[in-house]
């Protein structure tokens, strides 16, 4: 492990996460065909992509929910593609993930949800946990909501509560899956604001998967566009805006897929769809 660590440092001195030729498959269907990019410490990286592009699979792989078929994922100096589950658990205590629908436990109050990682992984006094809990809820603008059940919260509040839970263990890296999905524009803007605050106040490394362009350009330091399991483009917001890559232009300018004209093409498309049903 020691030699690997030095290699890693030599490779990317500031990279928090490095992906090297990452491939992921479901069964015999390959979703990601060799992904390479780095996320620097303190950077907000937005992973853009359409439905079925593989961006959600990429996120699930980054937090260790999917095992890559090959390639390397260097996270905090360890290749999580090749470590034991015990080591992975240690890394997981240092990352936070906010799921699309919040994924709060319905049988627990908001407070119990946020305190769960602390109660499971630390030996802190109950009074200390109470204080951390209030602090985290305050950070996401949910002070005073600790005794509410998740079902009593609105969509935006659920997402904030989920962020509070992700923050509970003071993670170094925070992952967001579609933070603005299913929220009205005002609430979604509030969640974007929260991400910006976290970035500015705590210099956290943040990785956001989204297809909301407005939100992506607002929060991203850099963004990477994934299409059909490949990295199409990577760069800052300005670089993306001025990109001439046809796929980037199509995505940013919201141009629909060209209509299928030939009867044969249409048949072929249908059979493709049949052979590889979309997830």
């Amino acid at each position, binding site marked *: 492990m020691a030699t690997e660590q030095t290699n890693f440092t030599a490779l990317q001195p500031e990279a928090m996460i490095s992906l090297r030729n990452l491939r992921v498959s479901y069964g015999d269907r390959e979703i990601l065909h060799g992904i390479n990019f780095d996320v620097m410490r303190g950077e907000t990286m937005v992973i853009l992509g359409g439905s079925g592009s593989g961006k959600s699979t990429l996120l*699930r792989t980054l*937090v*260790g*929910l999917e095992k890559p078929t090959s390639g390397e994922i260097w996270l905090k100096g360890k290749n999580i593609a090749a470590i034991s589950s015990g080591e*992975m*658990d*240690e890394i*997981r*205590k240092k*990352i*936070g*993930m906010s*799921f*699309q*629908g919040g*994924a*709060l*436990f*319905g049988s627990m109050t908001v407070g119990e949800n946020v305190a*769960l*990682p602390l109660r*499971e*992984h630390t030996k802190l006094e109950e009074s200390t946990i109470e204080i951390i809990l209030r602090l985290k809820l305050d950070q996401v603008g949910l002070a005073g909501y600790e005794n509410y059940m998740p079902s009593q919260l609105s969509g935006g509040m659920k997402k904030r509560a989920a962020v509070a*839970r992700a923050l509970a*263990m003071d993670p170094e890296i925070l992952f967001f899956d579609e933070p603005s999905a299913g929220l009205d524009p005002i609430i979604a803007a509030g969640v974007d604001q929260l991400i910006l605050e976290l970035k500015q106040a705590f210099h956290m490394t943040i990785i956001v998967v989204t297809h909301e362009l407005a939100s992506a350009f607002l929060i991203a330091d850099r963004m990477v566009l994934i299409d059909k399991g490949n990295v199409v483009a990577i760069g800052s917001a300005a670089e993306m805006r001025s990109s001439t890559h046809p796929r980037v232009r199509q995505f940013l300018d919201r141009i629909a897929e060209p209509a299928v004209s030939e009867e044969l093409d249409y048949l072929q498309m249908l059979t493709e769809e049949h052979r590889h049903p979309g*997830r």
Partner: protein
Amino acid sequence: MNFVASAVAISMTRELGPLITAIVVIGRSGSAFAAEIGTMKVTEEIDALETMAIDPIHFLVTPKFIAMIVMLPCLTIWANFLGILGGSLFGVAKADFTFWTYIHASLDALFLRDIATGLIKSVMFGVTITAVGCHEGLSTGAGAEQVGRSTTRAVVVSIFLVVLVDLVFTALFFFLSQG
């Protein structure tokens, strides 16, 4: 007619008590295990547990196992008691027993072995019901309709396996008592 009391007592404690209790609990709790865990799977709560480095098996399944292994035998004792009480209604109404002679006849007919084999079975049923319910819940696919599917499967598979386990243990106890 004297056999009513002993027949009811022995069949309740050895077979019907554990089996009926197990089937009711499958409908009530086995399905609930599958539905609860299945819903948690669909809403990514299981994934959330994993990203928080909390083992979903340890966190969700272990307590259910303990609860089931403790409570199913308790419910079985209750079912045995009510079954014998029900038998006494027939005994008093139709078969020349008084309530107390019926209870005495039942107690005379019962050996500790009868009750114990029934309770051992109910523990095994508890293990079966929890294992099937939780397994079906955890193998739920994506989408709400999959939760319904898992729940149905949990009930059907549990009932089938409980009857099978009952068969195996009845045979086992029979041959053990022979030997």
